């Protein structure tokens, strides 16, 4: 290819390219400045929350950068998530979960220590946390839970409905052909 300073340099292509780059830079700037974001008062606004495109894609949320058009919410995005990045997020989530459990245990211990005092809310909190932990434990086997429930209701003889046979029964019609 001819150099930029050559007399025969392809002016058109360079011009077009520089224009594209210029536009891209501008768009990038606007995006970084947050001009494309929703108004803070909008329903779908996520202002104030931590923003990560990778996490958005991982959780299948709508992309914060492409949400300016209301009709294409959660639709197409040109952002991609690499496999490596996804694995990282997965691992981090696992660690976060473990950390939370640890802090829960600690908090429980502290609360126990404080239990002598009038901390009623704290006790409730701990209870709630406990339930939460249980739920998260069971979340994986949601399907098995449903199966369990269905098994229960199948084997449950009492919920047989309200069939009533007093001997009288029901008679419709009569000895003729309608």
């Amino acid at each position, binding site marked *: 290819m001819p150099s930029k300073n050559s007399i025969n340099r392809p002016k058109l292509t360079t011009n077009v390219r520089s224009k594209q780059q210029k536009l891209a830079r501008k768009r990038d700037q606007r995006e970084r400045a947050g001009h494309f974001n929703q108004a803070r008062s909008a329903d779908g606004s996520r202002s104030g929350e931590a923003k990560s495109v990778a996490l958005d894609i991982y959780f299948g949320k709508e992309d914060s950068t492409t949400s300016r058009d209301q009709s294409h919410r959660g639709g197409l995005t040109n952002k991609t998530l690499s496999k490596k990045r996804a694995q990282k997020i997965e691992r981090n989530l696992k660690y976060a979960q473990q950390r939370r459990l640890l802090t829960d245990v600690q908090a429980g211990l502290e609360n126990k220590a404080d239990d002598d005092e009038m901390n009623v809310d704290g006790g409730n909190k701990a209870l709630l946390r406990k339930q939460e932990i249980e739920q998260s434990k069971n979340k994986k086997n949601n399907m098995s839970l449903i199966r369990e429930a269905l098994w229960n209701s199948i084997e449950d003889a009492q919920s047989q409905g309200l069939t*009533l046979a007093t001997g009288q029964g*029901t*008679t419709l019609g009569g000895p003729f052909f309608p």
Partner: protein
Amino acid sequence: MELAVSHEDSQILLKDKNVLQDSVVDKYRTAGQITQTALKYITGLINDIYHYRTIENPLTISELCLLTDSFIVTRLEQYYKNKVNERGIAIPTSIDVDQLAGGWSPEIDDIKNLKNWNKETTSVEDPLNSTVTGILKAGDVVKITLGVHIDGYTSEVSHSMVIYPTSTNEAGVVVPTGPLLDVKADAVAAAHIAIETVVALLSCALTPEKLPATLGTSVTGQLIRHVVNTIARSYNCAIVPGSRVRRIRRFLAGQNEGIVAEREYKGVVWTESHQEAELLANSEVKDLTVATNSSRSAPSAIPVDDFVVKAGEVYLVDLKMVPLGQTTKKGLVTLEVVDSAKGKSHRKNELVARSGIFVRDFAQSHALKLKTSRKLLTNIDRNGVYPFKLSHLSENFPIISTKDYNEQIVALDKDLKSFRLGMSEIINNYLCVETPIEVAKWVPWDHILKVSNQNGALSYDATASLTLPGHEVPLPKLGIATLKLKSLVRSSSETIDLPVVRECTTVVLCDSDTSSGERPELLRLTGGSKTTQPSWIQSKLELNNEDPTVQGIFQLATLVKDKRFGLIVRETQPMKQSVNQGSNENKDMEL
């Protein structure tokens, strides 16, 4: 989509044309009258053949269907001629016996084919025998379904009648030997009571203050479902998937359900998912969903119970019940589609048939190769948007009673041959959809729960036609897709066929402007005490009077009876004049 209708036009077609006026009600009423008359005609024919035995040579089911369709078309000729662009048969007459839930309307050339395909079911004891041979026998529950539309204003009816062994009483009158005592009796009772109750409920929508206190304050989808479920449970019945109480509109009378994802669907539907949800409702586990709705349709097309019935609307009440008296365990009632494949996987007791009813899918377009199929397609398009049978497209249809019956049948048979050739190409290119023939099946729940489901809701059944938007997955909580359920039904040895009882009626909720009297009234287009009287049955079960819902149902029944203070329900009567079909019958006897 290639075709498009402008916003203004769609406003007119979907909204303005559905506003109840005197002219509209008149069209509905005329359609209802013709439907009632046709129903009377076919029940009369069946009674003559099997009960009074005045016709020696029994007509087969396909002949009965053809004769009734001809009757409707000749009757329609006299009404709204040159006044409306489209009028005709809204549902081709179908006669389903016992376990068939719908769609049994064989063509005239199917009589021989059916016998050839189903050689295993020739014995008289076989439950499918009357379906295959087309000759009914005592103890059969026969469901007759037919419909008429005038300018798109549709009235449909479905009625179940029982074939009895007959005896002659002291007065010399032929009477049934006794009432039906089988489990089928439960279903007949449940269906009859349910449909009458729902009609009464709908009439309460005109005057909500008269609704019994135990049933709430307004007629909603949830209330309708609750009431129907209560009645079904009382009679130890299950509601077959595909039952519905839905609003119908001009040209949108449920005939394209599953093909067209209809905008603003309003109605209660019963599917397998509701049986699953009901079972789960007893346990403490709630709000657990595994499969998500991946429907690409607009949310308004997905049927939900969250609606209020309003005056000025027209409703189709279509309920199918199966008795659970034979079953010992809890099970799922589902529908199996009959196909004409006779491969290795075919079982001996399975029905082999091809469906006779087709629906055009107008969203599809394709340049057909065969000349016959192109010609047929233009013929179909001219026929309208309602389901049709191939014989309706023939020039020899309708069968005229004054001409020779046999000659007409032979000519019709000849036409059908070329139509079948063209139809195969049309079907292969999805321009038309076959209305499936469905058989009601019962599968025990434990079999479903035992089986592992690796693919989850992702397995996709390309052959499953006519699923409602939002209900593509039959068991969403368990994540069992159509294909899996199909294989489950086939794999269990405990699966049984259940007899189905079907009642269907169309009602118009007229407000005070359009009603005949001062007060708002419910105009029942089809069914009612004159035309669809229940057959003589005796069920051991009855409604529990202590249940508040049942009390509400009893109150409703009394309200409907007392016209002065209660709810006004006006029934459309069949026409008085009888059509000269005598000569036709004579011809039949000579066969």
